[in-house]
């Protein structure tokens, strides 16, 4: 089947729950940023060093990519619509899972008492891209929550998840540099 349908050529698109909205609708901006984040995570996966410890990160990132599809699906669905019944509940355990992974990586890292410049190993650089896109997604979701109440079970967990996910990518960037033997560049002001 062809990937192009032409139904969005006039600048409008359909939500999962069927509503036609402009492509600059706040809901589209929100799940579009999540989609962009998912692509950045994919680039990070592709850039991971070949290392057994990196394989663990790889598995975490694949799970995160799957979770982001759930985030996108919820954002593409008007709360209370029949389509919402087709979605799995957003996991309350997901933020805790991220915290566990953050803590495990930090056990291998030196304490940080200065800003670091984003970069280093390609996987770390992509982790910083993911971190910043994640923050943008979070801002859009906050805007969506203010403009059109998110209003679904698990909405608060989604905000917590995105907030924690950005932290995860910051630590993952440091961890990838650690695994690859890349020295972090501190910001000296």
């Amino acid at each position, binding site marked *: *089947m*062809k990937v192009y*349908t*032409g*139904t969005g*050529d*006039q600048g*409008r698109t*359909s939500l*999962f*729950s*069927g*509503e*036609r909205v402009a492509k600059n609708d706040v809901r589209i901006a929100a799940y579009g940023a999540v989609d962009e984040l998912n692509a950045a995570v994919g680039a990070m996966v592709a850039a991971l060093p070949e290392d057994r410890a990196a394989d663990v990160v790889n598995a975490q990132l694949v799970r995160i990519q799957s979770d982001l599809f*759930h985030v996108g*699906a919820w954002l593409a669905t008007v709360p209370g*619509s*029949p*389509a919402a019944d*087709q*979605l*799995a509940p957003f996991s309350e355990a997901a933020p805790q899972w991220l915290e566990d992974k953050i803590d495990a990586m930090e056990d291998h890292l030196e304490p940080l008492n200065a800003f670091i410049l984003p970069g280093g190993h390609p996987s770390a650089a992509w982790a910083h891209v993911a971190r910043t896109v994640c923050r943008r997604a979070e801002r859009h979701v906050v805007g969506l929550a203010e403009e059109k109440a998110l209003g679904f079970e698990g909405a608060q967990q989604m905000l917590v998840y995105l907030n924690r996910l950005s932290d995860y990518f910051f630590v993952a960037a440091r961890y990838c540099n650690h695994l690859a033997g890349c020295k972090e560049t501190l910001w000296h002001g």
Partner: protein
Amino acid sequence: MGTGRNRQQCYRVSLDHRRSLTSGTFELHFARPAGFEFRPGQKITLFGDTAARDYTLVGAPEDRTLSICVRHVPGGRLSPALARAEAGDRFQISAPFGFFLYQSAGRRAVFAATGTGIAPFVAFVRSGVRGFCLLHGVRTQRQLYYRDILSQSAEQYSPCIPGSGAHDGRPPDAYSGRVTGFLENCLSRGTYDFYLCGRREMVRDATRIIDRRFPDSRVFTETFF
């Protein structure tokens, strides 16, 4: 998501019987494997020796068999083999998947199909959906398979047959033109839930008309080819 495809899960099924709809279209009924549950409007992938194709299940979830509607494409990679299949022949199918589901209780629904894109609407009707407006775009009257069951359940049933397709006669309730022509010229302005299934060009053009003529409507689409 609950109705997503479980790509790991497949079922072995045997053909129960074949039912001809027209000279070039038929239903295949498979013995229903244990544990196979689906929702009206969902699809399966049917794996043949040389190709795999997606087909919408046209029966009701509680039916004894699983049924699909197949258009025989001469020279095609799968449908000719399906046209020759006999009772007892075995096939592999995927778990059901897809999100083209009826979700318009209490709202005005318009179903628009071209050709075998009628399949999910048959599944809706066989599952008890009633009171909708149905547009079925076909080239000739002979392709109006499922006409009886659909017209009995619809509030309005309008076959859409372009003028050049009238050589085998035109039913009195048919609209002379395409589905998109009906949407443009005949459907009263208002807010609807539109379900579009069929050719990409129809889905594209119908969506543009909906955006212009029927603001605040909802649109659900399934593109066949």
